[in-house]
């Protein structure tokens, strides 16, 4: 292990159900001040007697259980978490505090606008900021994550064409795209046409032109793309698509490479999503929640999901439900509001200069790291990168050490691995996104670990192939898990 990690131990902890003992309970209810009701008598067969699957534990045991579990995770607060495309930047503590203010945390979505002006004002201002940052005209905050944003965006594209009586059946998606792009378009009933990236890793107008037709509703594109490379021909590509009546969807997962430096809207993007849990620092929570607002050009504003927030002449804020052409509602309520509050606090903390600075340093970090490890790892594309870089295991060929092994070995050095085997167009990809939160010394330590592993792959490949060696659990057998799935605990196993 390099200087980042050293000897230690882990606490063990069984499943809740294995620690359960009949008669324990971790809560008590207030004294009951109304008559008891016997459910059986009142509901008969509509009621149940047994609660299988629930454990019985005291408060102290539950607290220890989850505290111990937590110690088995990597986390941004413990160190670099360079998952490419995931933008694991620092999650400011003040955001956690403001999101918990009772006026936000205990407000109800059905409270009338007149009683929730503070929240509507926040929505209105956040929409304005996101529109300004992206160069879009209007924004909806409803989508719960990027993928739902994609769904909403494609739905608006469909509504736009339908409105014109224009039945289009295909959507173009570059082969370097994230899986949610084709999945979201398909969920909209579109047929996916994959467009090949050029040998330089970016999309070329020619390739798009060939695939483009009056049957194509639009193109989904990520910029900078999943290689971290700016799509230099994007404007021209947008023209190609627009010329054939199509629209361009922008996957905003990598917006953190552009904030304050360039605006997707200025590049010709018609509709895009924001991942507030990436670019705008809301914590990823071990899988979520995130938030995936969508920005649109005026041409698509009529199709926004309802309701939308509007400011009345008297300066008060209201909900507007009456958009005749709206694609309708995407969320049971107003979206992942808690995340919106955090993202707004982040924008307030950085301001115009800070937002731009963060972008510049994220890009500097990715370029610096690449410069440090170039030579030990193969760099598939020559183009300059922005906020993340992709390298491969090609130089380890012959050692028997693969990208997966490098990833697992990084864990022994105290690092969460980068994204691996994505984008699919790169063999054995290691996709590394340090974000602006990492200091130069931190990047140097991480680069040293990567170099040490490349070295070790040649001197002692077996140690790398069998990594990790210092975690509570060694390498886990994913094939076994999929072959005979055990998806819940059952008394006496089985």
């Amino acid at each position, binding site marked *: 292990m390099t200087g980042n990690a050293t000897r230690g131990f882990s606490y063990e902890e069984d499943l809740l159900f294995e620690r359960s003992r009949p008669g324990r309970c971790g809560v008590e209810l207030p004294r009951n*001040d109304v008559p*008891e009701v016997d459910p059986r008598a009142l509901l008969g067969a509509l009621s149940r007697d047994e609660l299988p699957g629930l454990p019985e534990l005291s408060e102290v045991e539950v607290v220890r259980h989850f505290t111990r579990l937590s110690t088995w995770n990597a986390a941004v607060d413990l160190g670099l978490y360079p998952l490419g495309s995931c933008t694991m930047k620092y999650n400011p503590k003040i955001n956690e505090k403001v999101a918990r203010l009772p006026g936000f945390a205990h*407000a109800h979505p059905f409270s009338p606008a007149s009683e929730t002006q503070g929240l509507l004002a926040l929505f209105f201002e956040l929409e304005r900021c996101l529109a300004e940052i992206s160069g879009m005209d209007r924004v909806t905050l409803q989508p719960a994550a990027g993928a739902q944003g994609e769904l909403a965006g494609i739905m608006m594209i469909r509504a736009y064409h339908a409105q014109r009586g224009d039945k289009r059946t295909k959507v173009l998606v570059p082969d370097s795209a994230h899986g949610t792009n084709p999945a979201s378009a398909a969920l909209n009933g579109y047929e996916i046409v994959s467009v090949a990236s050029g040998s330089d890793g970016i999309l070329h107008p020619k390739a798009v032109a060939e695939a483009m037709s009056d049957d194509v509703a639009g193109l989904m594109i990520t910029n900078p793309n999943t290689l971290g490379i700016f799509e230099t021909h994007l404007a021209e590509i947008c023209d190609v698509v627009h010329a054939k009546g199509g629209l361009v969807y922008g996957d905003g997962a990598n917006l953190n490479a552009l904030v304050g430096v360039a605006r997707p809207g200025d590049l010709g993007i018609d509709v895009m999503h924001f991942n507030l849990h990436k670019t705008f620092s809301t914590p990823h929570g*071990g899988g*979520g929640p995130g938030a995936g607002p969508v920005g649109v050009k005026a041409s698509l504003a009529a199709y926004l999901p309802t309701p939308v927030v509007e400011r009345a002449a008297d300066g008060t804020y209201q909900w507007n439900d009456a958009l005749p052409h709206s694609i309708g509602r995407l969320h049971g309520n107003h979206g992942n509001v808690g995340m919106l509050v955090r993202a707004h606090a982040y924008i307030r903390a950085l301001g115009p200069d800070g937002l731009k600075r963060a972008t*510049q340093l994220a890009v500097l970090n990715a370029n610096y790291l690449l410069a440090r490890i170039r030579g030990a790892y193969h760099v598939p594309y020559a183009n300059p990168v922005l906020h993340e870089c992709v390298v491969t295991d090609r130089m380890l060929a012959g050692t028997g050490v693969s990208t997966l092994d490098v990833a697992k070995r990084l864990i022994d050095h105290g690092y969460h691995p980068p994204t691996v085997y994505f984008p699919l167009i790169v063999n054995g990809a290691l996709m590394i996104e340090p974000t602006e939160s990492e200091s130069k010394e931190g990047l140097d330590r991480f680069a040293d670990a990567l170099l040490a592993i490349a070295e070790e792959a040649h001197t002692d490949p077996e140690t790398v192939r069998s990594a990790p060696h210092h975690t509570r659990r060694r390498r886990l057998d994913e094939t076994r898990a999929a072959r005979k799935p055990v998806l819940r605990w059952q008394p006496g196993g089985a």
Partner: protein
Amino acid sequence: MRYLPHTDADIREMLARVGQPDLGALFESIPAQFRLTRALDVPAAASEYEILAEFEALAAQNEHAGARAWFLGAGVHHHFVPSAVDALISRAEFYTSYTPYQPEISQGTLQAIFEWQTMLCGLTGQEVSNASLYDGASATAEAVLMALRVSKRRKVAVSSALHPHYRGVLETYLAALDFELITLRRGSDGRTLPSAIDRETACVLVQQPNFLGCIEDLRALAHAAHAQGALLVTAVAEAISLALLAAPGDCGADIVCGEAQSFGVPMAFGGPHLGFLTARMAHVRQVPGRLVGETLDADGQRGYVLTLSTREQHIRRERATSNICTNQGLCLMMATIFLALHGKTGMRQLAERNLAKAEYAKARLRAAGLTLPFAAPSFNEFVVQLREPADRALARARAQGIVAGLDLAKFVPELGDALLVCVTETASRASIDRLATVLAGAGA
């Protein structure tokens, strides 16, 4: 800037190493004409102190359940959350980690999800639970899409007593696809009538308890659906009811979906909440969202991993069972801790307390001379008919610090001046008495 570690010296050294003169040069791959030459028009940077003051001012403008007698539910419920929940999800290892793609360094999140899956299967009477979906509404849409894949039919029979927002999201999700939505009428007792189900029906979708608070007879609906070879999809918007009502799966529901916000997740103006979906093992490959499974490590020790990912977008792309990627992980963690704290005993007591409070409220409202239109039994929510426009009654109640419920005029106009009232364990007898008085007010 306080979040950025770079010193000017760091930046100089790093630029030298990458061979660039300045930070601007890093962006030369962006065509010059597209580079922003002005500062963004967003408010100037603020210190923590200013942010806190600003957000406190905004928060102070919103009514909230902490400062009112609260009887508004309709799919978002006010329940007490033990303080251990927030203390534990505030562990940075839980809230600042990503989706557990690398199991060896994510066992904490993975084991908790496996525990959630186990508990939710028990509560819903199913064999498979996923690791959360966005919310109850999209979970319901995903459940219907799953039923359509399983049954390969094209009609969806939807209860008219489904939460209108769930219905709305379902319509949005299905709009692009060529499926047909049929509405199942409501009987006079407030429950869904199993009519209009035929051989083309892919699934019957009912909410339990339904939007009007009535407890459906799931067995009868399952029977009617299965008789036509259709699936029964049951949506649950008030998850606490699962601890008291017959498990949907045991009543024949093939897919159970819905919203688990009531398990310790703050109302937060509607999100983030916790969509869930459980099903039969036979249909596991059609389940949307992430699944955690048990396995062994290189030493033969038990551990947990994300599994059956061939269903998912990152592998299957356009043929995936769903496009979901980021889900509601931390809300799942809250719910898992909430259920662990309550356990068998606590959850049962909590559900019975909700029932008792609601029954007391119903009695008081009847005694106050108001009408409860539906005969079907309810859990913690029910409809009451007023003798005046609901908005007037609500305004009068608000003036007394009471948020009395949801005005149904917009959602179920045929009920006339009606309120949907939700009474949870948080309502004191005194506050219920005040509710009855204020709602009777006009007529009294």
